[in-house]
């Protein structure tokens, strides 16, 4: 409860700060509130708190909330100039913090209405943020596309929830779970359709193929910091919610539906990696890479189900940090749409930035000793334990393809370049890259979860 209050209050404070002339205080305030939530989550990691039967802070939600806070702090830190550039600083702060509160709802919901509210609170500010460059055509396109498809997926979600309610007569997850086994055949069918619809809505949100078509355009059109926010915080929140949803239905999912979801994993892994291999625009490449990680995360949580929290927490943290690093350097090189050639000779012009990107790419490609390897390994081990050996083979193939396109970026960085040295990074940004790099290496040695 306190966590949600802190986040929302900071959002409100950000709005008020405009006429209280506290704009300079916003960044420390936002980071402090996130750190406070992180601290609270750690302090009460074992305890359970039910919030009006709508949400609960427990062993499931607290780790995810912590991951979101870590990623949030890193995001605010790394992309703080995003707020300095804009005239409407406080609005953007407020929007981000509100969407963060939505993410907190999504990871802690115990009631389907809360899930829906969380999804909307998370998404609506991001629709606005995606179009924050008002004069940019691509930005507007991205924002509009995201809004339309987001609305579309909300419909699916609502439809799914309604059907689930129709079948069981409840929105509450625990109650719903207890009723699943004792349904009449008609209601059983309703339940299954509701399940599939809800999963489809989630698939939209996490951009799993074939529901991914919006993602590359939106990621490309939005400002880099917003894209970074979408591929980290938004995606992690959606995945946590999806995992919770899966766990409710654990063991009762009919074979055909299960196969359909495995098919989703397969399709996502294949499509994302094959298309990514031919991209020349770094933002689009990162978009497809993000979709490919969706494939891995989906594979992991669906094959393991019960007890997949640790896997997902670890994967999200590692993937999030690597993404933030890559996007931070991309933003440093160029504010907008970047061709792969923008990275040319980076190792000669800015070694730290280049090494950070290399580590991020190696981690995302899943190469030891980077943390991304352990993350991917856990996913594939879970799939194998679930008897889905074929999916492991697909995952391995996907990883090989992924190495190809991640290394394309690395190779370009080693090419000689005549370009003048880029402007040096500020101290705070250097520290940011150091911290990210250290986490990517350190999370292997000391895996927290």
């Amino acid at each position: 409860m306190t966590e949600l209050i802190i986040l929302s209050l900071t959002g409100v404070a950000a709005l008020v700060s405009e006429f209280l002339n506290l704009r300079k205080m916003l960044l420390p305030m936002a980071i402090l509130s996130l750190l406070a939530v992180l601290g609270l989550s750690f302090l009460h990691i074992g305890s359970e708190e039910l919030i009006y039967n709508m949400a609960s802070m427990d062993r499931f939600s607290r780790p995810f909330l912590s991951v979101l806070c870590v990623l949030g702090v890193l995001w605010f830190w790394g992309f703080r100039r995003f707020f300095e550039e804009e005239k409407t600083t406080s609005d953007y702060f407020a929007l981000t913090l509100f969407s963060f509160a939505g993410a907190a709802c999504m990871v802690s919901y115990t009631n389907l209405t809360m899930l829906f509210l969380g999804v909307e609170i998370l998404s609506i500010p991001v629709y606005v943020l995606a179009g924050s460059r008002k004069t940019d055509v691509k930005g507007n396109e991205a924002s509009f596309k995201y809004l339309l498809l987001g609305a579309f997926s909300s419909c699916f979600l609502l439809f799914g929830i309604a059907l689930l309610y129709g079948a069981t007569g409840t929105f509450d997850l625990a109650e719903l779970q207890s009723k699943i086994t004792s349904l009449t055949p008609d209601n059983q069918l309703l339940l299954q359709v509701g399940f599939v619809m809800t999963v489809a809505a989630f698939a939209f949100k996490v951009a799993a193929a074939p529901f991914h078509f919006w993602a590359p355009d939106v990621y490309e059109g939005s400002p880099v910091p917003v894209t970074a926010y979408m591929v980290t915080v938004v995606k992690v929140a959606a995945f946590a919610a999806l995992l919770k949803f899966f766990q409710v239905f654990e063991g009762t999912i009919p074979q055909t539906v299960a196969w359909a979801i495995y098919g989703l994993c397969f399709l996502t892994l294949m499509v994302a990696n094959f298309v990514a291999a031919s991209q020349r625009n770094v933002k689009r490449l990162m978009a497809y890479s993000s979709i490919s990680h969706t494939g891995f995360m989906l594979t992991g949580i669906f094959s393991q189900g019960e007890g997949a929290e640790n896997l997902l927490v670890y994967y999200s943290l590692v993937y999030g940090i690597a993404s933030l690093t890559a996007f931070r350097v991309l933003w440093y090189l160029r504010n907008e749409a970047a061709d792969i050639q923008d990275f040319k000779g980076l190792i000669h012009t800015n070694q730290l930035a280049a090494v950070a990107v290399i580590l991020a790419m190696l981690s995302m490609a899943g190469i030891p000793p980077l943390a991304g390897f352990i993350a991917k390994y856990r996913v594939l081990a879970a799939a194998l334990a679930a008897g889905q050996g074929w999916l492991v083979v697909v995952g391995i193939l996907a990883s090989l393809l992924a190495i190809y396109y991640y290394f394309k970026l690395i190779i370009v960085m080693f090419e000689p370049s005549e370009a003048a040295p880029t402007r040096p990074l500020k101290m705070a940004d250097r520290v940011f890259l150091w911290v990210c790099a250290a986490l990517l290496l350190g999370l292997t040695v000391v895996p927290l979860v």
Partner: protein
Amino acid sequence: MLLLPILLIPLITAILAYFSGKNAKYMALGGSLLNLAYVLFMLYTYNTTGQETFTFSMPWLPHLGVSFSLMMDGISLMLTILSSIVMPMVIYASWNRDYEDRHVLYALMMLMDAAMAGSFIAADGFLFYLFWEIALIPIYFICLKWGGEGRQRITLKFFLYTMMGSFFMLFAFIYLYQHTPDKTFALQSLYEAGRSLPVMEQGLVMAGIFLAFAIKMPIFPFHTWQPETYYIAPTPGAMLLSGIMLKMATYGIIRWLIPVVPLGLKEYGIWLIGLSVVSILYASFISIVQKDYKRLIAFASIAHVGLISAGLLSANMRGIQGGLVEMLSHGINSVGLFFVYDIIVSRTGTAEMDKLGGIRSIDPRLGFMFLIIVLGVVALPFTNGFVGEFLLILGLFEYNQVLGAFAALSIILGVVYMFRSFQKMMLGEVKDEALNYKKQTNQETMLLLLVCVLIIGFGVYPKPILAISEKSVMELLEGIAQ
């Protein structure tokens, strides 16, 4: 506890070398010599205390069944000695050459040394895999940054190819892991799991693991990455690749293949050995027609490693012992061959043998020492190459006489291509490219002399080397005989 410094000394040296800028070469050489001294101290402890294995274990990823456990017996010790002898030589070989950002180069080299040493002493399948992969990253960047023409494409192919192979190994390990009684990746558990499998499954597991090794060594038909990569690699990179890195695979055969799937090996091993023998002959014939000296060495390396692989897979005392000795001599000889390449190219700018000639008449010292290295490579008696190859062929003969006979051809073919290269570059008339040839420096002489001393020393008195691994190999063979 005794084992940790083997990892830590190179690792710390890597970090220090990176931060010591211009003095990186002193730092790297000092660190690698310290490492050598420590390994020799280990050898001394091993010989005097009679303790057969050193172990170290620490929990790491308990929920994945992974622990950070290291183990060193005679076999591992042999390989550790190899890497710690070769490493200072590689660093010394690049002493007076101009490389951009040397501190990075040395840091990467030491990092790779740490990883390779780790793979030689890992006693956990997962850990072995980790070290195996980690070793790949520094060498990739060494070749990408300091490599020659076409490095982008070639290094990527190298990386993807080896990565693909190791995925198969990982897959096989996970499969074994699922059959372990205590759900861990520990060496003994994997052995137990592997031996409990039916023959057919053992064969499949063997194929998966062997594929990774076959690519790394490499063995025909998985060798296509190797000549190109050796060709574009900077000299220290090529020395590391052929001197130490491919031994990770041959060591892997002894530790992670033979004892894991003894039945599978007995049933289907003939195919792997057959492939290795084909590889020997194929690479030898190709060596004979090479025009470039460096490519010739690359193919010669395939031929030699094919013989090692065939001998090891015959899984008898002579084969394995021979393989171990041959690994050591191949490491030293590789450094010698690549160093000769480096010396010649730094003077003439080319290693095309038709353009060179008569170097011996200008620089007789180089000619003489190159001859000794060539003799070592072709396994003349009283050189280190002879001990290994003789035992290998003997072991293979014990296993299958026909294959042994074919493998023995490699020695004759080796004479053909090695002597041809010697003849073309060293003898005959002085060609244009070699006209302004400068004599070798004292530093170069020192290193070559060291190589020659090791070649002859091990060749004349190989007993202490053979004794290091004897007990461990015996134990290993007893283990699989049950």
